[in-house]
């Protein structure tokens, strides 16, 4: 016995124009049709925003954690007679630590700048037992802060590694959580869209049960009937999703720039190739529409002899 629906034939039927006008057998309008288009559009719209949120928070987390990486410092507060020796030891140790790109002893004027908030503009740096500060630039692969801390403890007991974690880490974890939330909503929205488009397709097919029965009675083959419906619905889902995506992308594009807080925040928009991501949404909607309608049509057809 032949398989009752041939996928390749269905795909051909879907992409080929419809010269015979077989699609006309499906009633053109009705609320179920609008519903399919609209739910695809609405879900695509929400998906674009969730996608933008996930991408933006991802960017934000990355930026924050890279800033965090760049502001690692080693502070040496040894007594005056030991400080030069310990500083040299630390610099040597840092040089041999894997994952560190650069270690730079801050000159007095930079230290002065850092202490300004505490002692005012005319810090008497010379008069103070000011610590030596070494700015450490992390290499791309990063380094093991704990190991370095232990090593410094042995070699230069008065050196303190300050990776500013207390300040920045919560921000990074907040951004990461937001990204997870964005991805989670994306998943939710994808699942809800899938279910909604499936249900809309089924509702539309059920509303057209009469049409299917008439067509079977006059000798239409399953493939003919299924193709007409699947083509309609795949197009509707894709069109609706494309509309929703376009609208949402435009809305994201039109959102006010959020970068005014300097490097701290990032806009909700897409960046560079990121603008291509939303293009996946109509494709996904079309795929969902195709699979859902095909399954629904097959199921309905099985109930009609």
């Amino acid at each position: 016995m032949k398989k009752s629906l041939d996928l390749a034939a269905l795909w051909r039927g879907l992409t080929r124009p419809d010269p015979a006008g077989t699609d006309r057998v499906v009633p053109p309008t009705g609320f179920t049709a609008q519903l399919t288009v609209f739910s695809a559009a609405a879900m695509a719209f929400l998906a674009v925003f969730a996608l933008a949120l996930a991408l933006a928070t991802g960017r934000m987390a990355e930026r924050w954690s890279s800033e965090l990486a760049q502001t690692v410092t080693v502070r040496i507060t040894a007594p005056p007679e030991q400080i030069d020796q310990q500083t040299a030891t630390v610099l040597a140790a840092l040089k041999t630590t894997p994952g560190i790109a650069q270690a730079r002893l801050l000159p007095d004027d930079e230290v002065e700048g850092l202490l300004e908030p505490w002692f005012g503009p005319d810090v008497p740096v010379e008069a103070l037992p000011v610590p030596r500060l070494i700015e450490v630039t992390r290499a791309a692969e990063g380094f093991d802060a704990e190991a370095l801390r232990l090593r410094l403890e042995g070699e230069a007991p008065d050196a303190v590694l300050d990776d500013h974690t207390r300040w920045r880490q919560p921000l990074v974890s907040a951004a990461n959580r937001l990204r997870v939330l964005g991805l989670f909503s994306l998943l939710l929205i994808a699942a809800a869209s899938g279910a909604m488009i499936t249900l809309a397709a089924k509702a539309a097919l059920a509303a057209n049960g009469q049409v299917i029965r008439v067509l079977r009675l006059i000798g239409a083959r399953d493939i003919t009937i299924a193709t007409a419906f699947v083509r309609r619905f795949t197009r509707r889902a894709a069109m609706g999703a494309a509309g929703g995506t376009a609208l949402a992308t435009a809305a994201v594009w039109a959102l006010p720039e959020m970068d005014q807080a300097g490097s701290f925040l990032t806009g909700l928009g897409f960046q560079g190739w990121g603008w291509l991501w939303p293009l996946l949404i109509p494709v996904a909607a079309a795929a969902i529409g195709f699979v859902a309608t095909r399954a629904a049509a097959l199921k309905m057809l099985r109930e009609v002899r």
Partner: protein
Amino acid sequence: MIEMQNLSFGYSGNDPLLADMSLTLQPGSFHFLTGPSGAGKTTFLRLCYADLLPSGGRMAAFGQDVRGLSRDGIAGLRRRVGVVHQDTQFLDHLPVAENIALPLLVSGEQVDMPALGELLAWVQLSGHARAMPPELSGGERQRAALARAVIMSPDLILADEPTGNLDWDMSMRLLQLLIELNHSGKAVLIATHDLNLIRAAKQQVQARVLRIAGKRLQLAGADL
């Protein structure tokens, strides 16, 4: 074309409705099917176009066992059998002419427009070609159903109460059409209560009258 041997049928959950039926429909034959309301005439016709499958016995259509037919096989069978349903359904969003041409459309065949026009004239629906099915009167629907049934020039025509909504003159016209088709070699089976129709037909064609009574198929005598 259709062969039944000891065929029986019952709707699921109900007692058997038809039992132990044997019948052979030959090409070019002309049958009437009668029986009281609810006897199973429509059911019998549905068995003939594989809308229902027999519960027992053997049935072959065009040489093939109907139980072994694939879904596409059933579709193929239905293209060779034209059916006028007791309550024919149309696609309400397509005009009457397109509905009548629908069997051609779904089997991918070309629509021969002059032939379609002739067919419409033949059932006196030329004026309603562009009307929508819900705008047809009861009799007009029945004539449109007949036109749709014969457009693929099937080998067998099944008609369920085709004159139920027609007056005597129109019934005679319709009978004439069916007799014409029969003369051109097609087998015809008409389910009807209208004994006058049967009597009128018997004067023009060699028609056999079948009767469903007590779940069985009987050959009604010459008493009609």
